[in-house]
């Protein structure tokens, strides 16, 4: 079958990302919006837009039946879920298929298998993919604490239905275990409606390495290489890159092979990511599989020259994968930074505001996937990610240089963003040496603090402040004209 019109059950930068590829493929697009979220560039580019309703606004993007109805009403034949929201919701995938639409993603059964961390781990073990020593509460709830203690410390306690760092507790000693279990259970119950827990060995100073896999409906599964996403705060990724800077080729091959094995055994179809942690001594453990397109997929696109959304749509149409494993080539190095509305220097607290001035960085090897337009209101209603800055270079050093320049040129005045903080991370000698693990930001916290403005800088800033026009409504019309509305001939 051929997809003619695609409903994008998402918003912001990923909606724009998907619209771009769909247009290139001649597929019409429909993007939803909400009265409190109507400033996305995707809405300007999409063929049609549909208003969603719900309070809080995020609930509109979680209302599967309403999204499916909107897709049908607008004449779409497929739904792309993007990432987050309902992208890994098996019930939604099933409902989309039952409504006679194509779900651009894996079959519901595969989402179900991988969506539960515990069944996913059991499955990985059966496929010969290593997992960390663990204790599952469901096996015998009354002995859970005891079995968790037996694994040894440090220990990670997390919700079995969880993800995104929510409901996770690190326990360093036996005395803190009971409290950690209570906290993790409360958070898991609240976020996922499921308080079931899992305890596992916490690998210290691990690198987060993940493998992009792709499957089709003809039984082929290949990988498109690894990504390292070790620069994280509160278990959330900030900087992602490929290739992983110091991963030995032999270990890389073993991890990629394991990922393909896992995906093949699962009957995987469409884009997926197998996440692992790699210890300083080179052991790797399966973490989880994300059954959707990842935020950081562009770094893979930059080094392979492929369009993963195009692959997703082709696979969803029933086509075989465009390439065989041995035809995949990787060139140079690519790094992505997540531009977030947050004050990184005040403990990464989210910020809100209005985007008054926006400048998108440009140049060779620079890609900016942006979810806001000038004048957009950044509220606490949605995730804090405003844009992704991705660069490519023939070498990692060149990619870092280009990324630092591009960050300097990134302007989003009116709301606090983390661009300068990201620039400081990239400038750090340990980052440049590839000495990255998930504890990087905490360990180098002191080095990453901003320096005070120099006297010269202060004077220059104040001088410009005095020169900036008092009113900045550059496009505002004088009132009598504004009230006349648009000209019509």
């Amino acid at each position, binding site marked *: 079958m051929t997809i003619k019109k695609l409903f994008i059950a998402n918003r912001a930068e990923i909606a724009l990302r998907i619209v771009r590829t769909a247009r290139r493929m001649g597929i019409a697009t429909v993007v939803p919006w909400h009265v409190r979220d109507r400033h996305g560039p995707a809405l300007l580019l999409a063929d049609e837009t549909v208003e969603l309703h719900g309070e*809080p606004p995020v609930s509109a993007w979680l209302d599967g039946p309403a999204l499916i109805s909107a897709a049908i009403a607008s004449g779409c034949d497929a739904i792309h879920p993007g990432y987050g929201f309902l992208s890994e919701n098996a019930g939604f995938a099933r409902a989309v298929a039952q409504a006679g639409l194509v779900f651009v993603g894996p079959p519901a059964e595969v989402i179900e298998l991988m969506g539960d961390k515990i069944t996913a781990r059991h499955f990985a073990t059966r496929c010969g993919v290593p997992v960390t020593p663990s204790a599952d509460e469901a096996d015998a709830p009354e002995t859970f604490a005891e079995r968790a203690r037996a694994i040894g410390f440090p220990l990670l306690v997390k919700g079995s239905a969880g993800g*995104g*760092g*929510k409901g996770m507790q690190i326990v360093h000693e036996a005395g803190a275990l009971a409290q950690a279990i209570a906290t993790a259970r409360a*958070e898991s119950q*609240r976020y996922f409606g499921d308080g079931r827990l899992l305890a596992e060995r916490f690998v210290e100073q691990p690198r987060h390495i993940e493998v992009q896999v792709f499957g089709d409906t003809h039984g082929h599964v290949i990988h498109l290489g690894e990504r390292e996403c070790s620069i994280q705060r*509160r278990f*959330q990724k900030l900087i992602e890159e490929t290739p992983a800077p110091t991963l030995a080729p032999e270990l890389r091959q073993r991890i990629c092979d394991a990922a393909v094995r896992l995906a093949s055994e699962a009957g995987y179809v469409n884009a997926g990511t197998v996440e692992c942690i790699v210890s300083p001594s080179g052991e790797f453990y399966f973490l989880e599989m994300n059954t959707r397109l990842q935020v950081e997929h562009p770094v893979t696109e930059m080094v392979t020259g492929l369009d993963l959304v195009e692959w997703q749509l082709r696979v969803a149409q029933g086509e075989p994968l465009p390439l065989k494993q041995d035809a995949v080539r990787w060139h140079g190095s690519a790094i992505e930074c997540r531009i977030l509305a947050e004050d990184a220097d*005040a403990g*990464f*607290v*989210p*910020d*809100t505001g*209005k985007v*008054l*001035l926006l*400048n998108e960085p440009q140049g060779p090897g620079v890609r900016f996937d942006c979810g806001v337009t000038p004048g957009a209101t950044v*509220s*606490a209603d949605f*995730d*804090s990610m405003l844009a992704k800055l991705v660069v490519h270079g023939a070498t990692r050093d060149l990619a870092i240089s280009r990324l630092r320049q591009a*960050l*300097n*040129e*990134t*302007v989003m*005045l*009116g709301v*606090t*963003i983390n*661009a*300068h903080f990201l*620039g400081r991370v990239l400038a750090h000698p340990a980052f440049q040496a590839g000495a990255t693990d998930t504890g990087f930001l905490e360990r180098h916290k002191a080095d990453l603090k*901003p320096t005070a*403005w*120099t006297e*010269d*800088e*202060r*004077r*220059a*800033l*104040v*001088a*410009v*402040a*005095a*020169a*900036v*026009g*008092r*009113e*900045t409504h*550059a496009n505002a019309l004088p009132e009598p004209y504004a009230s006349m509305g648009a000209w019509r001939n």
Partner: protein
Amino acid sequence: MTTYVLHADPGQRHQTARRGNLVHVDGAALHVRALDAHSFITEVGGRPTRIRGIAHGDNIHLQLNGRACLIRRIDPTRAGAAAAGEANGSATAPMPGVVVNWLAQPGCAVQAGDALLVIESMKLQMTIEAPQTGWLEDLPFSEGQTFQRGAVLARVRTEEVAA
């Protein structure tokens, strides 16, 4: 003569006077040339440097070398009005978000540091504590309500009030 302060350093006031392209800042003269409405060239450390800027009311948002800076224009007609607003005993929101649940009820006695309510913003939860010992006068936002950064989330008073 106009006064400006850096948001990050409100204690230090800068006096400016502007004549065409020449801006005097605390007595030093700087040439500021506009490239367009929001891009300016001036000297930093003896080198011509580009600074972006846009005003929003009395707030001027600027960016120099990739780093943003917020500068406030001090409006003499409004000075002093805001300073008295923040009373002691109020816990204010460090970030915008939503109230998850109340851990104390208005009217009850609290010790400094007691957990009063849990808030959440995006993916971060935090507990708001009593800023001082006394009785909890008010929790202005109920469970599920959203608030902006700086909003008063709890008021604790020290003196007893006759019932």
